[in-house]
């Protein structure tokens, strides 16, 4: 997994609540047997007009946001399907962190396994961030995972929560499977003990 330490980026605003994983990447893109090319399908139906041409109003199509790594979204981001293609599509496009007031459980788990940082902020921080993206779209925000801080362009900073295990995995780019496999003996012992019941 790609490690996550610090990023500095513009914030892409996506002011919708309940963005579901079918919007992040529609099912027609799920026939792949690897992780390549999914960025092509990211927000497909919002990014493209019915005739297939780019929708100029959608932020991912605007010059301003090319290369941006932070997405700011409404409440309950990533609800619906468990498809890990959603974080693969987001990171494939270049997104490394998403800020919202809450995330759906499965999406959050999937994001953390792909070097994609879900940051939960209060409603007031979310509102001021949306205001900021409107007033000065090119302003940049710093995210520092080690100190768990967001540093906003106006000089203020906001801290965010993350469990220590996910934090270590992200900082060091560790695949969680390694941790599980280190417990092989305990897993075997558990299996043994249940046979006896």
């Amino acid at each position, binding site marked *: 997994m790609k490690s996550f330490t610090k990023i500095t980026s513009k914030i892409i605003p996506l*002011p*919708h*609540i*309940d963005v*579901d994983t*079918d*919007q992040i990447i*529609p*099912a*027609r893109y*799920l*026939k*792949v*047997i*690897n*992780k390549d090319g999914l960025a092509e399908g990211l927000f497909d*139906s919002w990014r493209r007009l*019915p005739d297939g041409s780019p929708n100029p109003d959608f932020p991912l199509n605007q010059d301003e946001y090319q290369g941006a790594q932070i997405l700011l979204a*409404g*409440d*309950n981001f990533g*609800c*619906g*399907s*468990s*498809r*890990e293609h959603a*974080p693969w599509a987001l990171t494939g496009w270049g997104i490394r962190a998403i800020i919202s007031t*809450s995330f*759906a*459980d*499965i999406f959050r*788990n*999937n994001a953390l*396994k*792909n070097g994609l940082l879900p940051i939960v902020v209060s409603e007031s921080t979310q509102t001021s961030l949306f205001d900021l993206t409107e007033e000065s779209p090119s302003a940049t925000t710093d995210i520092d995972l080690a100190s768990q801080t967001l540093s906003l362009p106006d000089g203020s900073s906001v801290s965010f929560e993350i*469990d*220590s*295990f996910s934090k270590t995995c992200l900082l060091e780019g560790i695949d*969680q*499977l390694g*941790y*599980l*496999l280190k*417990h*092989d003996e*305990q*897993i075997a012992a*558990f*299996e043994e003990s249940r046979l006896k019941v």
Partner: protein
Amino acid sequence: MTNPKTLYEKLWESHIVAESDDAPSILYIDLHLVHEVTSPQAFSGLREKGLKVRCPERTIATMDHSTPTISLSLDSADDMAIAQLEQITKNCADFGITLYDAESDGRGIVHVIGPEQGFTQPGKTIVCGDSHTSTHGAFGALAFGIGTSEVEHVLASQSLLQTKSKTYEVKFEGELPFGVTAKDMILALIAKIGIGGGTGHVFEFTGDAIKALDMDGRMTVCNMAIEAGARAGMIAPDETTFAYLKGRPHAPKGDAWDAAVANWRQLPSDEGAVYDKSVTIDVSALTPMVTYGTNPEMGIPINERIPSLNTGDAAEQSALSKALKYMDLSADEPLKGHPVDVVFIGSCTNSRMSDLRAAASILKGRKVADGMRLLVVPGSETIRHQAEAEGIDKIVRDAGGEWRFAGCSMCLAMNGDELEPGQYAVSTSNRNFEGRQGKGGRTILASPLTAAASAITGKVTDPRELM
């Protein structure tokens, strides 16, 4: 006396392999269900790391999402779907996993065949790379959806890193009125608490109205727990559960059956067990439900009007107007009577025998409206055979509908069964997200009774008018 425990707490505690202060718990997984869409990258991960599948005997695979439903052969599938289906065939062969493939009689939607074959049992931890794994909770199992990285974790270690969820009691009291079903119960709950209402929680569905449901109905309710954001939905096992499982191909037999039932009887939540949250719904006040928007919480009783644009806070108002724009529907208008182009009866929510029988009870001796496309897709090949033995295929065809082979079909529109842009569908599936049933398609979620009634009239219809 020890602390009274909930069903969820009992399952959680009995599956902990290891606990630590600086990492999530390691939870043992009894049954891992696998399908073609969310597993290929997990098997590639195993190959790259030189790992095996730890317990092939606890792993069951099927093909359901990208398989055609117009024939049993894969000839009509597109090249990418064929590549995906060939990949799961190879992965299962290489790693020694049982696969219910295209020609298998037991093939079907993953959440339909697990219970049907008797793999799903009370007290088990069950996962699948699929959010509707919550369905299996109807048997008193702890069942939840996982991502593909976690699929790889379970294949390699038969366990998962998990943090304990909070508990949420959803009590359905009273008696269901005529024409109102399990689907209406769960749609009413989601409309009440919202699609994020269960986030971080595991639901336990309790109350007389739950006990009165058959297993098919209980599965419908648990299936959509995820649509309220819950990690899982569970129902305590009882005589109805045991009667369903007894004699199923993979259920315990003989003495093992008696021992299993004795264990299962210990699972229900103890008297006095405490939940972190609770809600009660009186089902005797429910009517058939329909959705008008682009997520499952945007639902109303069929005789009510679509909400006003000034409902809720600013974010909700903006979501409502975005949804109504997509649906091309108006606030404050009734949805009943709105023209419908397609009716889809199927999906892991409502494709079991009792769902098909309910739909057939309305379709029998009638014809679908002019221009209506009715698609009926059984949840498994076993169900298809049984329905055909009962003559349901004939009822559907005589009414002018299409009778298909088993699969996910138009629930997620990956296999060519899809809506055209702008079409309205009344669908018994679980998600009305934008484009879920085909790009630009508009989904109205409802019960099999409501769907069948709408197919006959060509409009969103209260099924009680045809019963």
